[in-house]
């Protein structure tokens, strides 16, 4: 049975689709959003991030301060980070679209990137023989 599943974002509309990742039935993005909603100060930044995702989905350029290519050298599968003052979202871009793997706060950035690469590795391993 597959460990990972994808669900398309319904609040991002554009040429390139955005997906959130479910790992063993749990979605880290959804949990992150629930956490942000409890802190009204950060909800505006969450909206800002989704607005940027919408730009990415429509192939519109963003400043490097807002969207950063964090792909390591020699790595083929592209990695990106969307950043606001306090929030970070990490995603990969493959043949089916952009897949959000991990999101977090600024103060957990190193651990989140580590987790992001670990999830990415597991996801790539599981899906290497299919078209996800």
């Amino acid at each position, binding site marked *: 049975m597959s460990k990972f599943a994808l669900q398309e974002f319904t609040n991002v509309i554009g040429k390139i689709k955005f997906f959130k990742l479910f790992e063993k039935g749990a979605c880290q993005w959804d949990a992150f959003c629930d956490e942000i909603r409890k802190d009204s100060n950060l909800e505006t930044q969450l909206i800002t991030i*989704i607005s940027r995702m*919408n730009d990415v989905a429509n192939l519109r350029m963003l400043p490097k*301060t807002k969207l950063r290519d964090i792909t390591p050298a020699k790595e083929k599968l592209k990695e990106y980070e969307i950043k606001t003052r306090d929030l970070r979202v990490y995603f990969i871009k493959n043949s089916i679209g952009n897949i959000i793997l991990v999101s977090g706060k600024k103060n957990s950035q190193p651990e989140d990137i580590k987790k992001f690469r670990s999830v990415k590795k597991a996801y790539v391993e599981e899906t290497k023989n299919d078209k996800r």
Partner: protein
Amino acid sequence: MTRDKLLKSPAYWFEYEQNELFRQINEYLEVESINQTELASRLNVSKGYVSQILNGNFNFSLKKLIELCLSIGIVPKINYKKIEEVIKEDIQAQFYYDNYLLDPENNIVPFFSPNDLRMPSSAYVISDAENNIQLKA
């Protein structure tokens, strides 16, 4: 967070407009083949001001926006629409993207013939000015 809530959020549009201005200025830099310092000099503004705009953080007055745009040869035409109309267009855009694919050059191609499209009854034309695409139901 629903799409409806996003489209009614000031933060959503504020972010979009800041980034759109960044794209306009960035394009000007590319077309003119100049750097930020040269742009600041041409506009008679500080390098910090230009840097702020190119970081997508323009938050000055409407007057400044108009002055900035005119100085690079464009006009910031603000278009007012009823929110209900924007939401309706957004739903149509969703339908459009759900029924089209991108080819390897990121051009939009239909899954099937446009004549077969089943569009919402209120939708007659969906246009994508950026890509010069127009579909008719």
